[in-house]
């Protein structure tokens, strides 16, 4: 914590004022991270941030500052959509995955049905063999060797403890969001994992058609 005897916090350095012992910014804007405050100040303004922090309990302020810093960073990277572009992209990814999930479930139910039929016929064939009967049936079981898509943990760390009960609004912020702007935190890592995961199997088309799981 910065005090008058130590170097001023990043906020007071930026604002060129004396950093008081009770400075509200000092715990959250250390002097070695000047860009953090610069971004927050540019997007939200110091006085708005002060008001926001003063309305919160002390134990909530660090998370609030970090989320403001993240939002400010995203807004500066993408002045049109900011964080909303990230939300829009993630919602799209989630919709795609849910389509893939329903395709996978329907594929599984087919294999499960085949499994029941196959076992029944094997048992019947074994019984017939024991009694020297000949069967001319064709099981017609397709050989499959569907590989398990290797999946690393995409969620390397959580930005904040998420115990919120937010309602996810369907906000379509437009389709011109530049995916290369997704550099913050673990978002790009997650989306990278999503791309690899989709390449390891046939994916459901965006219009909802199911593509069967391709054998590896």
């Amino acid at each position, binding site marked *: 914590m910065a005090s008058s005897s130590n170097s001023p916090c990043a906020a007071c350095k930026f604002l060129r004022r004396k950093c008081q012992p009770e400075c509200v910014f000092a715990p959250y804007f250390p002097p070695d991270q000047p860009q953090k405050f610069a971004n927050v100040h540019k*997007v*939200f*303004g110091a006085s*708005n941030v002060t008001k*926001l922090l003063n*309305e919160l309990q002390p134990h*909530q302020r660090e998370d*609030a500052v970090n*989320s*403001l810093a993240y*939002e400010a960073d995203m807004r500066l990277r993408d*002045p*049109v959509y900011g*964080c*909303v572009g990230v939300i829009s992209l*993630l919602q799209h*990814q*989630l919709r795609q*995955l*849910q389509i*893939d*999930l329903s395709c*996978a*479930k329907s*594929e*599984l139910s087919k*294999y*499960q049905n*085949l*499994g029941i039929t196959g*076992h029944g*016929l*094997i048992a019947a*064939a*074994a019984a*017939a*063999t*024991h009694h*020297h009967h*000949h*069967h001319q049936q064709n*099981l017609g*079981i397709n*050989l*499959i*060797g*569907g*590989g*398990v*898509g290797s999946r690393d943990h995409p*969620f390397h760390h959580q*930005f*904040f403890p998420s115990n*919120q009960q*937010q309602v*996810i609004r369907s906000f379509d912020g437009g389709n011109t969001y530049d995916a290369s702007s997704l550099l913050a935190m673990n978002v790009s890592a*997650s989306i990278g994992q*999503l791309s690899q*995961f989709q390449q390891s*199997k046939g994916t459901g088309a965006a219009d909802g058609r199911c593509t069967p799981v391709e054998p590896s």
Partner: protein
Amino acid sequence: MASTRCAACKYLRRRCPSDCIFSLYFPSNNPQRFAHVHKIFGASNIGKMLQDLPVHRRADAADSLYYEAHCRIKDPVYGCVGIINILLQEIYNVQCQIAKIQAEIAFLGTHAQSDQTQYQQLQIAPNLDPNFLSEQKGLSNSFDDSSTWFF
């Protein structure tokens, strides 16, 4: 003379000039929209952000700023970031479900293949000793280590 001030100028209690940067995006019939963005970002910051953008991008920018401000007012600690966290968690959960189902499909596929092999052997050699079947099953199970990995 009827008032034609935009919501921003009404809120700020000032005259609304003809080239007001806010008027197109903060109409007077939605005062809450400007109130929210002003509370979080401040009018001057909003004005600067809009000014820095080409005209055809300003509407989307105003919408996204309003959305962010609304989220921040509803959740003063996390704002939009809370929604991002929830989405990431849901994406992870669905990925886990897909991976599990793919593993089950692979497992069932492997067993279906070995069952078909056994069935074909029965067709070729119908007079086989029934004990031969169980020996084959034991061999195929030990060969396919993945069948024990998933369950």
